[in-house]
């Protein structure tokens, strides 16, 4: 008589298996998915406690918190995937206050039928991104929706960080005379994702710039503690980000087209797709605004960091009761750089 193996569960089939409704039901299948995938990949002392919440000591100072949902399509794109994107996105949102990101949470909405192999690839990419950034994913949640009611996988991440003493970076602090800097080439992420869209496939060497920017931010804050504004120009691109800041600070802005760092391939792709690179998303770039006397020092600090080697001063803050962002065109004229109207690229992050 064969002995029954007590407590034996057949391991998840990460080669051919698929997500089914039981993986979100709260039962044994869900526990197994968490144990065999998430805990293994994200492994850290907080997760290992296996509680419904992560417990950690409170740090003194001001804390910041940010959340970001990721619904990108396609899930895998040149230079990244929804996994690392969801880690970088929230780390960057936290870091744009000048904060050091400390912890992340991750919520997954999975669609029934989604291949476990793809899920594993995504989760491992998240784990790698979190490890590289030094920001652990300390708590999470998984839900499964019926087939047709999701699009493979949606990921929401939340991040907590702490702002160093004396740093006050905020969207309403842009002042006339301030300089506007960007940390590198604009539009890479949007073009990389666009190149894979179903009705549009074109070949490009452009890869997404997805990256965690807190290291760059730390270097910048060390060089110039009084940075006025930091923001990462994701959806809507630099144009939308600057319009947000102009409204918040009740100022205008003047950009110089010739100074904008944009790759030739991105310009070319935008040209034939009828897009404006200023509205195309970035996932590893930031815009910074600081006093004119700090600008050169900040620029040098950015250029000294690998994620800021193509940094440039691209314009200045001006007085303008209408809060227009304007641009001196390379051609010699002037124009408004307006808010994005409608959607330029669907589901890019």
């Amino acid at each position, binding site marked *: 008589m064969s002995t029954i193996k007590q407590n034996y569960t057949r391991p998840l089939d990460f080669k051919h298996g698929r997500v089914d409704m039981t993986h979100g039901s709260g039962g044994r299948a869900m526990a197994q998915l968490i144990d065999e995938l998430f805990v293994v990949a994200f492994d850290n002392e907080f997760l290992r406690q296996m509680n419904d919440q992560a417990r950690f000591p409170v740090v003194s100072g001001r804390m910041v918190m940010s959340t970001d949902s990721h619904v990108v399509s396609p899930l895998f794109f040149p230079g990244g995937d929804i996994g690392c994107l969801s880690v970088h996105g929230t780390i960057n949102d936290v870091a744009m206050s000048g904060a050091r990101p400390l912890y992340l949470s991750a919520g997954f909405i999975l669609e029934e039928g989604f291949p476990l192999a793809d899920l594993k690839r995504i989760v491992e990419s998240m784990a790698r991104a979190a490890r590289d950034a030094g920001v652990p994913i300390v708590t999470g949640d998984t839900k499964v929706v019926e087939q047709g009611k999701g699009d493979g996988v949606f990921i929401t991440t939340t991040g907590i960080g702490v702002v160093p003493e004396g740093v006050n970076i905020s969207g309403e602090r842009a002042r006339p005379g301030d300089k506007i800097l960007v940390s590198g080439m604009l539009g890479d992420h949007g073009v990389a994702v666009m190149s894979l869209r179903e*009705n*549009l496939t074109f070949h490009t060497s452009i890869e997404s710039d997805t990256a965690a920017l807190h290291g760059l931010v730390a270097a910048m804050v060390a060089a110039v503690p009084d940075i006025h504004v930091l923001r990462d120009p994701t959806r809507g691109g630099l144009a939308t980000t600057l319009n947000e800041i102009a409204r918040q600070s009740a100022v205008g802005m003047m950009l110089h087209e*010739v100074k904008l760092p944009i790759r*030739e391939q991105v*310009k*070319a792709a935008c*040209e034939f797709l009828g897009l404006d690179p200023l509205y195309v998303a970035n996932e590893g770039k930031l815009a910074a605004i600081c006093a004119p006397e700090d600008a050169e020092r900040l620029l040098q600090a950015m250029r000294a960091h690998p994620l800021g080697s193509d940094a440039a001063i691209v314009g200045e803050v001006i007085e303008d*009761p*209408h809060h*227009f962002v*304007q641009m001196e*065109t*390379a*051609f*010699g*004229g*002037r*124009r*408004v750089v*307006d*808010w994005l*109207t*409608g959607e330029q690229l669907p589901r890019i992050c």
Partner: protein
Amino acid sequence: MKYVDEFRDGALAKNIAANIAREVDPHRSYHLMEFCGGHTHAISRYGIADLLPANVRMIHGPGCPVCVLPAGRVENAIQLAQTPGLILCCYGDLLRVPAADGMSLLKAKARGADVRMVYSSADAVKIAQENPERQVVFFAIGFETTTPPTAVAIRQAQALDLKNFSVFCNHVLTPSAISHILQSPEIRQLGVLALDGFIGPAHVSTVIGSRPCEYFAEEFQKPVVIAGFEPLDVMQAILMLVRQLNEGRAEVENEFSRAVTRDGNVKAQMLVAEVFELRRVFEWRGLGPVPYSALRIKLQYASYDAELRFQIPPLSIADNKACECGAILRGVKHPRDCKLFGTVCTPDNPIGSCMVSSEGACAAHYSYGRFREAA
């Protein structure tokens, strides 16, 4: 970008601007109409107005395909899209054009209609192939540039023997619209609209050639310079028009010789003639009914004509009373003359069609040029 940046060179632009400034007669003004939305867009996007003397005025013409499509045709498409099981394919800009009651294809999509944005007519054919059990309609619009690809799609559907593909044809003709403007009472009798010359169509001319413009130059004594869509093309064309006017000439000149010949693309013309025929009359937004200004699908391709297949009724929908799109499309008014401009009518909430496409006079002015009014 090679082959493109050369046409956006700021130093060359300054040279041409200096020539224009030197050559204009300070005692007269120059009212030049750019017909095409592509030119309107370039003028706004590159800030060309900043480089022109005050007495050279650009008047935006009706050459934005989305703008001139009457609300009734958009309403037809919206109703069609609500047919159960039907897939309606269209170009991106069209999605946001308002029809009756502020409804648009985008809003119809949000209410469950299967409306798909395509980049070319070939994508629509592909969608029809992939969905053999569903009716797929391509909402075809545009001037002579987009007509040949629609003809190709119809021929392709025939070759593939697709039973579920049809085209809702709204293709219109540039020369008829220019004639219509030149014959309008505002120009001919009342003198409401000063119009001294035209920047002739760019991409349209690559298909139809420069020959059709000769009629305007001769019959109406208006100089025409056919120009590309790059900002230097536009600057050079303005200089050429100023020279013609100073010398009392009214000729067709071709600045866009790198792409346009006198006869155009004969192969494309023959393809269009094979599939389409003239409509006796077609309504344009802003211009009203214009005789012989649009195309319909020939009888021998009738099985691909969505108008016949779905018995699409003629619909006429009046524009919002305060909307000045009509006058703006005829060049009689500037966007800033419209009470709705920038208040209730913005690119995010367009009331009139000129506010929809980035080639529309209102959207171009709102998005790129409105700091001029604010100053």
